[in-house]
């Protein structure tokens, strides 16, 4: 697991290799740590975590800005909801 600030308002969380429930738990905690309106770039390769993370974002009002799938690896950008 790697969580780092990549730039102004941009963070990256890499949970490649992890299975449930780690990717969704780390994503939840990373979103709690970043500020409103900031972007979390999430990299994971456990398909079932994607379903839970998408539902979690929808429920909390966080926006899934982009989703990419290359070679079984997902890269999603999530903007944390304002307020």
């Amino acid at each position, binding site marked *: 697991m790697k969580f780092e600030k990549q730039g102004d308002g941009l963070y990256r969380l890499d949970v490649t290799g992890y*299975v*449930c*429930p780690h990717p969704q738990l780390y994503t939840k905690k990373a979103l709690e740590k970043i500020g409103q309106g900031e972007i979390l770039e999430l990299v994971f390769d456990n398909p079932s975590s994607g379903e*839970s993370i998408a539902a979690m974002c*929808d*429920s909390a009002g966080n926006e899934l800005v*982009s989703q990419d799938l290359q070679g079984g690896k997902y890269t999603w950008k999530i903007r944390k909801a304002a307020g």
Partner: protein
Amino acid sequence: MSAAAEPAAIDPRHKRWALGIVAALILISVGTYAYHEYYLYLSVYLWFGFIYGMCLQYGRFCFSSAFRDLFAVGVPRMAVGIMIAIALFGLVGAFVSATGLSTFHAAPSSVHAVIAGFIFGVGMCFSGGCASGSMYKTGEGNMNALLVVLSISVTQAIFVDVGGWMNALVPESWTQSALGKGLPASITVTDGWVDQYLAGYVWDQPVMSFATLFGWTDKSVLGAFVGNLLVGVVLPGAALLAVVYAFWSRRGFMRKRVAAGSARPRWRDELAGYWAMIVGSKRTAIAGLALGIAAGLHMYATQGLRVKFGVRNAGPLLERMGSDFGLSVNGTVFDPGYWYVTTQEAQWVGWVMHKLGWNQLDNIYFGFNNGIPNPLINPADWMSIALFFGAAVMALLHREFKFKTPTLETATWAIIGGALMGIGSRLGLGCNVGAFFVRVSQGDPSGWLFGAGMVGGAYLGVKFFNWWTERRMAQQFA
């Protein structure tokens, strides 16, 4: 969700692999049927296993997620999907029961099911997937999930036969009760904790269904549809979903309504929110629908073949085909006639251990109940192997197949979690599928008891992982 990537074309190599798998399974079915018509019985298991694998992978259908994600991240999608699957399986199962063709037998109900479910629930949280979830994830190329499957299998095969110092932990009343059952001499019932637990305790517990609680039989229309389906499945399922909606889904839905300009929520908003939760994840809901219907039809097809071949269990069929090794002392093998996961996993390892010199036919689990037939012609094995391939085909067709090797950390969780699931399965006489999904669907109260235990176990597991992930995140920021 915005700016989602356009679905890319399927890799031609993946497509070829998927078609190759399907062609190989067809070849196995046709070839074995040409060799002997009894192989049709095994092929029914094979193709339903294939369907289960496809459905599980398509819907990312993991029972662990149903309980765990509620507590961990407040996501109800899998809890909803599983209730849909249970209701549909219950409906088809009620038809099958009312026609007298059900293969289902209720299990003893007592506190043991809750304890077993609790241990299983902690295990599935640790390992990252339930027994069936780990199987479909193995089909996605996840070797961590394969480690979970192996851990479940090995733990079960050892646990059911361990005596020695564990005999000292058996209450005397269990030993006496077990001795009183008059089991065949080949079963050493006083040597083995699980043997005495089964014959001395579990078998003494009441066996019931919601139908029989009301004085109906399971085969009667009232018993099947009102007792087992309506009272045993639909009403408690709808009530549970209402609780899930109130605690985990309502807030997000109402916030969207308010943002869209709605005034104070009314009843129709609540109903709309409840419905939105149910259809919230189409993939999961579709998988739940397909799984429920397939599981019901599986019972129907198997029982139809039993009638056609004049047997009540696959044991005599294997014997007639010249393979009598590994049959139980009753001449039977494990042949549930419906979706099941853990027993055939234990049989793989039990068979290997027996071949290596560890007598596995002197215990109740293998020697009296399930046998350890050659894995190549073990009916339930055909289902499990095909489940791997069904999941692999679906993953290949959705660009989600990827070989993943475990790290030391994930391997540790996999082995510990798998071992706990193996122990929980044997204490509860089944896993999340056999002891929960199937039993609840067919109106067996012990299924709800196992489920209640799983909820408690998942809650404890989530508490642990909350602490663990918080600690790891703090290390990253230190």
